[in-house]
């Protein structure tokens, strides 16, 4: 029971935040942080627990986003149906993709995922009749208020948190970790590695797709360069997890908070604000060198170091 206490408290605090009457700018930043938390948790399942580093999660993010956009464009339905529509679409593509790229290992797998993200972007740019290509899709947002969006993304993130927790603590979760630690050993123990890697990929992809569908509904405009972006989606998702903590429950949330809120804070500082990308780059390098397991993963190390330095000489 104790294990369930912390998430419930965090959820309650987050759910109570809009009651404080925060302005819509702060709400926007919170919504973006939670959206990246969702995407980060999804990536973490595959990249963190199962050890299959994907550089192509923009593919799933973009497919989720386009599910919502296209359902509105072609069927005239509310883009909120994109959440439901994205699940089977993303799952099917992930299954197909898994059966091909999960046969590859290490850097080959990474490169294959990288390519798939880009292939989807270029496909989307060129299927002009179907996707409107680079002109993108514009939808009318449902609400002006941020509160509804906030609770929806919070709900999705909570769902993702539960899914990840249940999976990680189930038999599947142990298989994932076994695969990450040593694929051949896992195989020799009778784990069908390709099958479990595909499961991790599919679940991870579906959750990422939900984040994408939310993006469309929230931002009201998507184009292939934005939602299939390598640098701004795929890499950002990885950074969120790396900074926060790989294969930790709270890492993605902390990472997303840092990537969004800290970036926003540093950017709005006068004078040094202009160099925020440089500062941010340095910060990331420092974190990766000194805390390779991320802030959550290396928290004990961090605490010990700070305490030792703090003690009188």
């Amino acid at each position, binding site marked *: 029971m104790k294990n369930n206490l912390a998430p419930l408290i965090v959820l309650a605090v987050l759910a109570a935040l809009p009651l404080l009457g925060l302005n819509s*700018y702060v709400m926007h930043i919170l919504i973006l942080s939670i959206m990246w938390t969702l995407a980060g948790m999804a990536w973490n399942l595959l990249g963190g627990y199962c050890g299959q580093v994907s550089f192509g999660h923009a593919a799933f993010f973009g497919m989720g986003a386009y599910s919502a956009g296209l359902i509105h464009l072609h069927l005239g339905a509310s883009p909120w149906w994109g959440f439901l529509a994205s699940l089977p679409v993303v799952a099917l593509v992930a299954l197909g993709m898994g059966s091909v790229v999960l046969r590859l290992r290490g850097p080959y797998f990474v490169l294959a995922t990288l390519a798939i993200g880009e292939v989807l972007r270029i496909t989307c740019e060129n299927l002009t009749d179907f996707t409107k290509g680079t002109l993108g899709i514009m939808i009318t947002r449902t609400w002006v208020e941020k509160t509804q969006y906030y609770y929806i993304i919070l709900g999705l993130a909570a769902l993702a948190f539960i899914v990840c927790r249940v999976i990680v603590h189930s038999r599947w979760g142990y298989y994932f970790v076994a695969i990450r630690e040593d694929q051949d050993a896992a195989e020799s123990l009778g784990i069908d590695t390709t099958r479990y890697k595909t499961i991790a990929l599919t679940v991870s992809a579906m959750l990422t797709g939900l984040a994408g569908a939310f993006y469309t509904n929230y*931002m009201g405009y998507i184009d292939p360069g934005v939602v299939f972006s390598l640098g*701004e989606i795929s890499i950002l998702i990885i950074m969120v997890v790396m900074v926060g903590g790989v294969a930790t429950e709270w890492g993605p949330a902390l990472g997303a908070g840092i990537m969004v809120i800290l970036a*926003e804070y540093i*950017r*709005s500082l006068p*004078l040094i604000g202009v160099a925020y*990308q440089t500062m941010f780059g340095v910060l990331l390098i420092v974190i990766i060198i000194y805390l390779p397991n991320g802030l959550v993963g290396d928290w004990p190390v961090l605490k010990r170091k*700070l305490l030792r330095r703090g003690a009188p000489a």
Partner: protein
Amino acid sequence: MRNILLALCLSLCLVLPATASAADTAFSVPLPLTGGQAKFGEIIKKSMEIAAEEINAKGGVKGGKLVLRFEDSQGKPEIARSIAEKIIDVQKQPLLFGEYTSACAKAVAAVAEERKTPYVVVASAADEITQQNYKYVYRINPTNAYYASGLLSFMDKVVKPKTMVILYESSDFGTSGAEEMAKSAEKAGIKVLMKEKYEKGAVDFKPILSQVKAQNPDVIYMVSYVMDAALLMRQIKELRIDARLFAGGAAGFAIPEFIDNAKDAAEFVVTATLWSPQVSYPGAREFAEKYKAAHGDYPSYHGALAYSAVYVVKDAVERAKALTNEDINTAMKGVDMMTAFGQVKFESRDGYQNQNFIDTLALQVLHGKHETIWPERYASAKPVFPIPKWRERK
């Protein structure tokens, strides 16, 4: 290590926002100041600063100084949206202006409309921005559909081509520019032999250009940003593709860097543009000279747009009864003024709302400089046509 961190934190807290005095009018402007579109963000920023300086030298706005702050959106829509939300919520600014890429302008326009805050689009070209029945979104630059009208009339009267090839970068701007050109060409009886998209930022265009060479078109029309424009022309020169006319669709072809980068391959290239430093609008030449004196090069049409936008904003703010969203919105609708960019007046017609319509120009690179060649009443030089073949050039 810990001390350094502490010092860093302290210094972060110490740098307090530079506040303007109460009588001043301060505006924050979202622009792409880093990333791929930074070049254009930079031109816009510098031009706005020149306008603000001039306005302040002449007494400022409503008795106070006009202060502009710039916020970097990196050309990413969600950051542009963050900035717009912040400007509206935290800074309580009653109007918005700025942004460059169409994707970002769409994001900002959506926020502006939802929050009932007037937004002046400065240089984003996608047609849809002013086709959404928005009541708070105004645009000074003509839309993509009109960018090439000056160039088309030049082709119609002088070049009279039969065939054309269109190359364009994979972006909103590139695609809609190419679509519009294909439509107009068809209407004018020009056969479009090939319409090919390339990856933004590509370095090797030779595979596409070899196909172009095989087609042997009369006109090669290209829609590109900075580097691609120069690379395309250099590789066209290397492959000795002799079309009767090389034409660019504004953006990358209409800025001075194009000539700097493409060198002699840029000679005789004709480009559509919205403005040029030699055009005869009042104040245009003065602005161009001032910009050149300060930054060493003539500004592109983006600069003139940004410079004029500040004057339009000043005009609306001064005529508004109070500094509220609604009053400024009413004042915006009444804008009818001559600027360095030409007449600015927001009209709703042809499916657009609150859109400024203006004649567009054609430039040609002559002796390593952009000269206005079309329409004839604004021309600063006579067009050179037919252009010499590559091997006849020295």
